[in-house]
C-alpha cells in the first residue's frame, strides 16, 4: 500500500491550513523530515516536514488551496513501486494540443469545469481585491463577471451591507483584504474578520492618483488580529519610568563574561524575567477572559511573547516557562527563537501559548508608544529607548539611564490601581536587578 501524508493536527483549535507552496514534485525522492509543503494557518507560515522518506507518487494539493486537518497531502510510492510512467521516447513531435487554460506545467489531474468568464482586466481587479472569481456570481451575458460583480463580492466580505450594493461608485472598504501575494501563490478570498461594520471609503482617486497595496500573509493576519483586539478590549495604558543604570552596568559586565559563543544578554532578556516575576505576583495580568462562560482564566504558567519585526511583518514568538529559567538560558533561547522567526522558520509551537507580551521598540527611538494587547491576553508591556536623563537624586541632579515603560491592560479584567502596582513592581525589579536572580 502506498503511504499517505495527511495534514497533521495543528492544535490550538486550528482545523485548516492554506497551502502556500508545494516544495516537492511528483517523482521526487525525499528524505524523512524534509520540508515538503509550506502552509499558512491563522497563526503563521510553517514548513511541514514529511514523516517518512520515499518517492512522492502524487501531490494532492496545490498552492492556494485550503485543506482540513486529516486531508491527504502527498502519497508515497512503495519502495521500488512504479510512480508514474515515463514519457516514452517517440518519433512523434512534441506538438501539444491547446493546453488547458491556466494549468500549471506539471498539473497532475486534468482540470474540470470552466474557468470563470471575466475579461483579463476584471481578473486583474479580482486579484488586486483578493476576490476568488470562482465564488463570484456573474451578472453579465453567459454569466460573465463584471468589475461591479467583483467589487460587490469584495464588499460583501466584512463591509457594511450597504457598501456591497452592486454598482456602488466607491470601492468598498474591505479592499484591505488579502490579495494573491506578490511573493506567493493565489490566496483564496476570505473576509477580513473585523468585528464591526465599516462604512464605505470615498473614491480616493477623485483627488489624485493612488496606489493599492495588498495586505497579505502575516500583515493581513496582524491587521485582523489587531482590529479584533482594539475593537474588543477596552485599552488603558499606564506609563512609568525605570532607572536602569545599574541593570545596564550589570548587563554589560556579564555580557563580557559570557565568553565566545554565548548569547547576547539583551535588555529584553531581563524584561522577560522581570515580567515573569511581576506576573506571578499579579495573576490577573496572566489571564484571559472567557466570553462564553464569563470567567477569568488564570494561567499558572508564564509564557511570554516577544514582538519581532520581520520582513513579512510583526510576529510574536513565545518563550515558554520563563519563571523557571535562568537569565543565560533565556538569552540563548530568545536568540534562537528570534533568529528562527526572522528566517521564517518559526514553528507553530513557537508562536502559540503566550500569556503576556513584551514589545521593545527602543531600537527605533521615541519616548514611548501605547501597545495593543495581543488578544486573548490581557496586558502587554511596551518598552521605549533607554536614555541618559538628568534625574534628581538626594537633592542632586545626576545623569541616569532611564527606560520608559508603557503597560497596556484590559480594563475589563484589571483596574487602574492594580496596573499601577504591577507597573511599580516592574520598575522596582528593573531598578534592583539582583532581585531578578533572587526572586526569579
Amino acid at each position, binding site marked *: 500500500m502506498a503511504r499517505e501524508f495527511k495534514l497533521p493536527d495543528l492544535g490550538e483549535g486550528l482545523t485548516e491550513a492554506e497551502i502556500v*507552496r*508545494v*516544495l*516537492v*514534485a*511528483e*517523482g*521526487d525522492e525525499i528524505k524523512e523530515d524534509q520540508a515538503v509543503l509550506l502552509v499558512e494557518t491563522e497563526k503563521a507560515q510553517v514548513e511541514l516536514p514529511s514523516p517518512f522518506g520515499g518517492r512522492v507518487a502524487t501531490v494532492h494539493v*496545490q*498552492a*492556494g488551496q485550503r485543506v482540513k486537518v486529516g486531508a491527504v497531502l502527498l502519497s508515497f510510492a512503495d519502495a521500488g513501486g512504479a510512480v*508514474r510512467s*515515463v*514519457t516514452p*521516447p*517517440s*518519433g*512523434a*513531435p*512534441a*506538438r*501539444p*494540443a*491547446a*493546453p*488547458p*487554460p*491556466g494549468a*500549471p*506545467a*506539471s498539473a497532475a489531474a*486534468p*482540470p*474540470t*469545469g*470552466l*474557468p*470563470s*468568464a*471575466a*475579461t*483579463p482586466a476584471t*481578473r*486583474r481587479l479580482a*486579484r*488586486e481585491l483578493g476576490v476568488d472569481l470562482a465564488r463570484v456570481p456573474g451578472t*453579465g*451575458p*453567459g*454569466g*460573465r*463577471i463584471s468589475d461591479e460583480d467583483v467589487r460587490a463580492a469584495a464588499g460583501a466580505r466584512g463591509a457594511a451591507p450597504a457598501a456591497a450594493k452592486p454598482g456602488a461608485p466607491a470601492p468598498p472598504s474591505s479592499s484591505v483584504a488579502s490579495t*494573491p501575494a*506578490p*511573493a*506567493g*501563490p*493565489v490566496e483564496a478570498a476570505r473576509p477580513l474578520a473585523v468585528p464591526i461594520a465599516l462604512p464605505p471609503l470615498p473614491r480616493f482617486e477623485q483627488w489624485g492618483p493612488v496606489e493599492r*497595496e*495588498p495586505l497579505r500573509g502575516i500583515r493581513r493576519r496582524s491587521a485582523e488580529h489587531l482590529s479584533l483586539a482594539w475593537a474588543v478590549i477596552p485599552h488603558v495604558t499606564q506609563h512609568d519610568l525605570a532607572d536602569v543604570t545599574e541593570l545596564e552596568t550589570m548587563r554589560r559586565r556579564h555580557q563580557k563574561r559570557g565568553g565566545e559563543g554565548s548569547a547576547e544578554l539583551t535588555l529584553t532578556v531581563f524584561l522577560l524575567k522581570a515580567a515573569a516575576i511581576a506576573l506571578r505576583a499579579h495573576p490577573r495580568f496572566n489571564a484571559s477572559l472567557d466570553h462564553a462562560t464569563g470567567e477569568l482564566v488564570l494561567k499558572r504558567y508564564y509564557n511570554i511573547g516577544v514582538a519581532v519585526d520581520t520582513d513579512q511583518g510583526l510576529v510574536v514568538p513565545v518563550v515558554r516557562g520563563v519563571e523557571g529559567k535562568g537569565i543565560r538560558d533565556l538569552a540563548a533561547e530568545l536568540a534562537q527563537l528570534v533568529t528562527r522567526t526572522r528566517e521564517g522558520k518559526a514553528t507553530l509551537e513557537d508562536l502559540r501559548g503566550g500569556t503576556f507580551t513584551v514589545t521593545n521598540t527602543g531600537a527605533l527611538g521615541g519616548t514611548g508608544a501605547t501597545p495593543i494587547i495581543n488578544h486573548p491576553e490581557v496586558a502587554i508591556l511596551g518598552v521605549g529607548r533607554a536614555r541618559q536623563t538628568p534625574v534628581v537624586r538626594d537633592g542632586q541632579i545626576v545623569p541616569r539611564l532611564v527606560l520608559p515603560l508603557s503597560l497596556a491592560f484590559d480594563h475589563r479584567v484589571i483596574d487602574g490601581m492594580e496596573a499601577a502596582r504591577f507597573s511599580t513592581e516592574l520598575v522596582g525589579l528593573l531598578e534592583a536587578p539582583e532581585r531578578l536572580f533572587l526572586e526569579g
Partner: protein
Amino acid sequence: MGELPREADVVVLGGGPGGYAAAFRAADLGLDTVLVEARGALGGECLHVGCIPSKALLGIAGLIHDAAGATDAGVTFGPARVDAAKLRAWTQRSIDRLAQGLAALAKARGVDVVVGHGRFEGDGSVRVAREDAPPATLRFKHAIVATGSRPATLPGLEPGSRVWDSTAALTLPATPARLLVVGGGYIGLELGSVYAALGSEVTVVELLDGILPGVDRDLVAPLARRLGKRFKQILLGTKLTAMREAGSALAVELVGEGAPAHVEVDQLLLAVGRRPLTDDLGLEHTRAARDTRGFIVVDAQRRTADPRIFAIGDAAGEPMLAHKAMAEGLVAAETIAGHPAAFEPLAIPAVVFTDPEIAWCGLTEAEARTRGVEARAVKVPWTASGRAVAMGRPDGLTKLVFEAASGRLLGVGLVGPHAGDLLAEGALAVEMGAVAEDLAGTIHTHPTLSETLGEAAELFLGHPIHLPPPRG
C-alpha cells in the same frame, strides 16, 4: 564586471522572447536587471533559428506556390529560380535588423546584457562562463530562468551533414533532391513545405497515425489533402528503424503499415519536437524542481519551489511557444515587482504556418467534454466566404466551440490562408468571455475572411446568412 560580484534585483537567464520580455518589464518596473544570453545577440532560438527565419522562408515558398497557382486564373510565370545564398542573406538581414532593435531596446532601459552561459551557484548567485573574458558572478534577489529549448534528437540519428535538425535546415545548406522529414509535427511540416517549394521531393515519416498529433482533425484534413499533393508521400504509423550511407545517398529502413521497407533519400531532416534546456543550469544548487521531462515546475506566478527563482517559457512547460513565454515573462517580472500578477490565460493561440495555415486557441469540443462541460461546435466551410472563393481558396474552415447553455465562446479553430492572423479575434473573444451574441453582433468587414467568425456565431444562434438555415 571582473572579480567583484555584480549585485542585481533580477537576473534573467536567457535572452529569447520570454527572457527579454521579462527583463524589459522588470527594468520598466524599476528593478535593476541583468540579462544573461549565451548567443551574443538577443532574440533566442525564435528570432535566430526558429519562428522568424522559418516565416521568411515560408513567405517565399508561398510566393512560389501562388505564382504557380495563378496559371488557373490565366496568369503564367516562368519557373522559379532560387539563389540559395541570396535567400539566406535576405533572411539574415531580417534577423539582424530585429536583433539590433532588441539590443537598442535593452540599452534604452538600462538592462545589462552579459554574454555567456549562466549557472546557479548555491548562494543566490549565478556564475557566467564567458568566452573571451573571465567568468562573471551575478548576485541576485530574484532570478528568472528563460533558457528555452533545443531540437530533440533520436538515438542513432545525431545531427550532422546528412541529418539536419531544424536549426541546420533553416540555413539552407543545400536543396536535396530527395528529403526525408522525420516527424509530422508543425516543424517538420513547415520546413518540409519550404524544401518542397524550393524543389525537393519531400517524404514525411510520422510515428502516430496522423500529422499534427493532438490537433483537431477537422482542421488537419484540408492541410493533409494539400500536402498530399505537395509532398511525395506522408507515411503515417511509420517508424524509422535504420539509416546508412549508400554512396551519395542514404538508405533508410522503415517499419509501418503501407510504408515501403526501404527508401532512398539524399538528406534527413529530424523534426521530433523540442526538449527544455534545463540540465546545465546548476539547478541542483537551488530548490527548483524539474518534472520527468525536464520542465521546471512552477506555480501560477511562474515561481519555482525556490522562492527566489522563477521559470518561464519552454523551460517551464508546454506549450513551447514564444508568445506564451513572453506572457509568462511579464507575469514573473510583475510578481517580483510586487504586483498581483498570475499566468491564467483562457486561450493560448497556436498556429501552424503551413499552407493552409492551421490556428486554434482555447478548448476543443473534446477537451470541453473531458472537463464535464457541455459544448457545441459549429463549422463554417469557407465555401460560404466570398473572399475565400475569390482567392481561389474555398478549402478553409472556421470552427467555433461554445458552451451549449450559455453561448460562451470556449475555443476557436481555423484552417485556411491567413488563419494565423484571423485567430486574433477569436483569442480576444475567448479571453473576454464573449458569448455568441457578442460575435454575431460585431460587424465584420466584407469581403474578408473574418466574416466566417461572425457567420459561425450566427450559425450557433440558428440564423446564418450564407449557409442554408439549420433544420429542426
